[in-house]
């Protein structure tokens, strides 16, 4: 057993969690919506990439590029059909409607693709398992490193987009106060639709990486939602860089947990999540 290796693998796993959490964190920051269908949508995107890869015999990365605009359109549609109405009917409705949507997506995926788990790993050849040894037996996988690079680029890119582009500024203004933003000529409806489209693009990227690094099956959406949510909460809701830290903390906690007990992987993650949440509540109630 090598602790340095375990922690490094935890950090790399955490990069995937940051990737999947990115869209959840972004939507929460902009619309105060926690999308319970988030994990199911990631799995749906993974299946779209899988289908395109198999049907046309193309590289999964090319397939992902084709899926991205589809998911952006789906995001726009999601905002117009579900989120908009949910947001108008009070704080409980988005939870209920997106949970219903998750049940629909999961079972439709099961209907279409069956219970067998599938993976993109065979389609990316050696890249799925090649790794470099850096020191003392510590390995760094090529795919894991790419995941980390993509996660940092995506979170950083979103941050830059929010601070330096007109649409980014509109999104921030609407997130701050939608009514006031409308007074200065921002169409909140359009901004929300754009934000949801962006969120679903990030979800699609995360879904593709999930299928490359592991397997997906129709009911894996809920566990992906929980990981994403844990990363967001650990890192501080609504903060994009916090989400990266949150993902890494979660990944390291899971890897350490698995060293303590064979079943400790998930338990370790959940416990760290609850501990961070408890500590935060304690600080809030003291203040």
């Amino acid at each position, binding site marked *: 057993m090598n602790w340095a290796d375990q922690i490094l693998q935890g950090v790399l796993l955490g990069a995937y969690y940051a990737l999947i959490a990115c869209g959840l964190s972004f939507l929460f920051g902009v619309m105060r919506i926690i999308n319970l269908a988030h994990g199911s949508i990631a799995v749906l995107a993974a299946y779209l990439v899988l289908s395109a890869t198999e049907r046309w015999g193309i590289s999964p990365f090319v397939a992902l590029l084709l899926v991205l605009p589809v998911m952006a359109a789906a995001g726009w549609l999601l905002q117009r059909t579900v989120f908009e109405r949910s947001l108008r009917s009070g704080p409980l409705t988005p939870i209920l*409607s997106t949970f*219903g949507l998750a*049940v629909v997506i999961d*079972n439709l995926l099961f209907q279409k693709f069956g219970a067998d788990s599938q993976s993109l790993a065979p389609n990316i050849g050696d890249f799925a398992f090649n790794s470099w040894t850096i020191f003392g037996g510590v390995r760094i996988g090529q795919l894991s490193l790419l995941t980390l690079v993509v996660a940092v680029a995506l979170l950083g890119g979103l941050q830059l987009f929010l601070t330096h582009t007109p649409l980014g500024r509109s999104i921030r203004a609407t997130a701050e106060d939608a009514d006031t933003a409308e007074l200065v000529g921002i169409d909140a409806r359009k901004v929300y639709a754009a934000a949801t489209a962006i969120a679903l693009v990030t979800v699609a990227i995360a879904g593709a990486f999930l299928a490359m690094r592991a397997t997906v099956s129709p009911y894996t959406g809920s566990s992906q939602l929980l990981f994403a949510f844990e990363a967001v909460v650990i890192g501080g809701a609504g903060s994009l860089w916090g989400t990266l830290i949150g993902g890494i903390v979660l990944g390291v906690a899971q890897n350490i947990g698995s060293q303590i007990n064979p079943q400790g992987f998930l338990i370790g993650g959940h*416990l760290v999540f*609850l501990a961070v949440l408890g500590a935060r509540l304690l600080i*809030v109630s003291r203040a």
Partner: protein
Amino acid sequence: MSDPSVITVQRWNPVSLTATGAVLALLVVLAFGPYFLGANLTDRVTTLFVYVILAAMWNALAGYGGQVSIGQQAFFGLGAYAAIRLSHAGVEVYAALVIAPLLVGILSLPLSAFALRLRGGEFAIGMWVIAELAHLLVNLDGLIQGETGTSLIAISAFDPDTRRAFNYWLALAVMTLLVGLVFVLLRSRMGASIQAIRDNEEAAASVGVRVLATKRVIFVLAAIGCAAAGSLTLATLISFQPRTYFSVQWTAYMIFMTLVGGLGTFEGPIIGAVIFFAVETIFGASGVWYLVGLGASALLFSLFLPRGIWGTLTDRFGIQLMPVGYRLRFPAGAGQEKASS
């Protein structure tokens, strides 16, 4: 003749008196169920009672407490697990089935101190994480043998017919008790607090409603109720596989029943449970499409009919079968009767 200018406050009216009488009569008839229903139907109606419990408890938490939980399967699973553990420790099996939910209720008290400080989506998914953790921890217990599971062996001491009748009566009694408790709670001083919190938490707190204490009562009641549903399900299924009991599916069912029947109404979840029971009986065999339909119904009801079937009917016609609220009765000529719940 009464003074025509006096507006009276009334709780009972002919409709609610008749309805309450009919419900009591129905309960008396149901009490004799095992004598006339036949084996298969007795089992099915027991399941219906469990659904009513689940719907009423989820509605108490979400519809009145304003807390949407996606993790009530935690208590459902723990209720069954506690019954297995108690029975294994030598407690008489039906006593174990009754004590188990109370133990889960005690466990839910410290949990509430944590969970009730979470809001909205955080509470919803936070409870889900707690359910996952409870599932993983139960799997660590050697007695359960991980996902292989175990059985409530002691209940096999009763012959199938006796067991079936006992399960039925226990489910009927627990359902009547729990739904009755919600009824009494809503009519009490706390009922006014509960409904004030449902309508606006900050405003309720500002007029002196003890928000956290009130929510805690509902949280613990819902925990006990879901645990009782879990232990009753164990009594009928006998086998205990953690994955089945800690499945989020149970919460999906609760959400479906409550949303379709009417979130935040007393009668709605009961009607929703009957609808779910009928839908399951008719379409349950169609598997995946049935589940797609349940999810789609939850989605559509939450968006387009948020008060559910019963809530929409009461809003439109001002009927209320069970007298959980008060009504203002205006003198003749001064306008219609107005319901205020």
